[in-house]
């Protein structure tokens, strides 16, 4: 997979598969909404001596990064996601994000809030009485493969 996210396909699906490495279940999600976040988990502590010398104390996390995605899902996909989260909330996951990058890590958010956002544009699918859109925020920490 390309390391430079700019070179990745933008129309790729967002997939989450679990449990890693014996992957059994895969859920395909639409691309996350804008304002998704990605941050470095490594930390640095600075100490300055009396002579002005700066000392830095670094905690590296094996290049583990923290990602946060916001999804807007249909009601049915929300139910599927609820089921997926209940099954694999503590399992190691393999995530292929919307930029084609593959991550191995865990969900770190707790609790998972599935919020009824708005009505869906069309009727509900699969015989559900209502068509709504739900939003869910996923926080994920993992190492890019």
């Amino acid at each position: 997979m390309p390391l430079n996210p700019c070179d990745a396909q933008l129309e790729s699906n967002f997939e989450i598969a679990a449990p890693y490495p014996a992957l059994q279940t895969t859920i395909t999600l639409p691309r996350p909404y804008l304002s998704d976040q990605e941050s470095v988990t490594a930390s640095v502590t600075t100490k300055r001596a009396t002579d002005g010398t700066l000392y830095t104390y670094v905690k590296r996390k094996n290049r583990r990064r923290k990602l946060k995605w916001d999804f807007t899902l249909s009601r049915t996909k929300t139910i599927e996601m609820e089921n997926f989260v209940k099954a694999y909330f503590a399992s190691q996951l393999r995530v292929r994000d919307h930029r084609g990058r593959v991550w191995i890590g865990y969900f770190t958010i707790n609790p998972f809030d599935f919020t009824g956002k708005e009505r869906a544009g069309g009727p509900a699918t699969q015989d559900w009485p209502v068509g709504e859109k739900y939003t869910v925020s996923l926080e994920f920490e993992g190492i890019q493969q």
Partner: protein
Amino acid sequence: MASSVLGSGGLGDLVLGDVGTGEYDGTILAVAEDSISLSQDVVVNAVYQRTATAAFSPDNGAEPTFRTQVGAETTDLLLVPLAVASFTTIVSAMSGAVDGFAPGSTAVATFRPRVDAASDIDIPGDTAVATFRTQVSGVSAFTLDATAECIFQSRNRGVSDLSLAPEATAVFRTINSALDPLFILTDAVCVFHSRFLESHSITPQVLASAQLVSKFVQSTPHSLTLTVEARVYRLYNVEGESTLSLDDEAERGVFRRSVAHNLAISDSAGVFLLPSGKATSTLSDLSVSGSCQLKTVRAFNNITLEDSVIVVGPIYVTATTPIQTTTTVFNPATLTFSSTITAGLADLATATGNSVRHATSIVSFEDTRAGLVHVRIDGASVEAENSLEIGHEGRISEQADATNTLALADEAIAQTGTSASDLLTISSTAAARISNFDGAESILAIHQAARFTIERTCNRNDFAPAIGASSDPNAPEPPPASLPEASGDTGFKLIYPATGLATDTLEIPRSPELGNIDRFQMDRINRETRGGTLLVYADPIWPKITTLVLRFSSLNPDVAYALMTFMEDHIGEEIKVIDWEDRAWKGVITNPQDPVTEDSPGSFTASFELEGERQP
């Protein structure tokens, strides 16, 4: 206190044992016995002492042996034929009154140290043999009869009459002095091996066929001069002294009472001389005069035993002897001082094997004690025996160390006047048994899992879980592959109780507002290793909580107040909720205190949170 003399003739074995004992006060690690075993043999070879033997007449075939002395002032010593008399020391004090010291025919008389003052030593003929080993002095009448043999080994002095009968043989090995008349008769043979000293007149009347053989120098060629010198010798005192001094002392660190045991034994045997005169011998014209001396030689052996027991203070005495003596040596490798055992018992346990295995075995034991008993020195023999057997065993376990610890405690009891034996048998065995299961086992678990995806655009929004298969038994339970069915009931209802026949039902005609939250909360722990690896774990039995956060608006007052009444009536109780999607839930309202707000006239807003789980 002096003990009785064990008697003449000698003392038998003397065994001394001195033991100290003390009370164990916890500070004494070991009590050692000081056992002394002595054996002394004092033999007084004073077979008998004959001061006056009236008639000493060994019979034919008799073989008397006179070892020490024969102080026979008046002695009739008659050696009958075939008798053998051996005078080892002295034949003395036969003050001219040896009548009839006549070795009979074929008798053999051997005078080893000296023969003095023998008046008559008549050695008859017919193969009588008299041998004077040391000296012969004061022999007034020394007559060798025919065929008699008289051998003077050392010297011959003060022999008044030395008559060598025919065919008699007198051999003077050393000195022949003061032979007054030396009559060498017919066929007599007189051999002078050493010298004649100041022989006044030794006129060997060499009769016919008598031979006078002189081996040495004659002082005057003109005449045969024999110079005989008489000397007085004083017998030396022979003392045999045997002093045995024993000091036994028991020392201990903690003194309560002490017992000192001093045993001194002195033994002496002496031979002294009672001088009663002196021997003079002048040689004048071959006349020898000599005087007999009465000398008494006695040998005695006095054994004095003194045994004193002084008890000062406590009865119990403890003798402490370290079992191990250690010394401190410097280790240049570690630059530290360490203690090493220089003497004593050392115990070593060694564990061998692929891995370090040790076993610990501690032996504790007890040893009986005997009390202190005072026994009279002349009392019955009492023996105290203290046997201590120690068995020790070290075992090796899979996890522990093998340590061989041998603790010793020994006590010895002092019994005055008796011997105590302390037998300590120590047996220490350190055995290391290592069971090594060297087989390596590695279980390789291989699981198979298969997943799939379907590339369809609607998969992003449809309920389309792609659930494959896995052989891992520890894999989490996959989610349901199909949508859960709705309940048979419709509308938004709150029903009490959650199961069974409903007794209270509240129907809310409106669905909750958008913005409702389906909250899934679980117990999960996150850990981060030093290397930065994130570890997440959740036990399957830990609770998983689903919460519905609902808000209703535009409620009419009846519904709003009925909702508050329902929450108040069944506060904390499990109720059943049929949501707007006809899903059945069973749970508890966790925030009944949330206010009901009248937003506009006749329009209320109410909210609650239901914590529960969905019911099929």
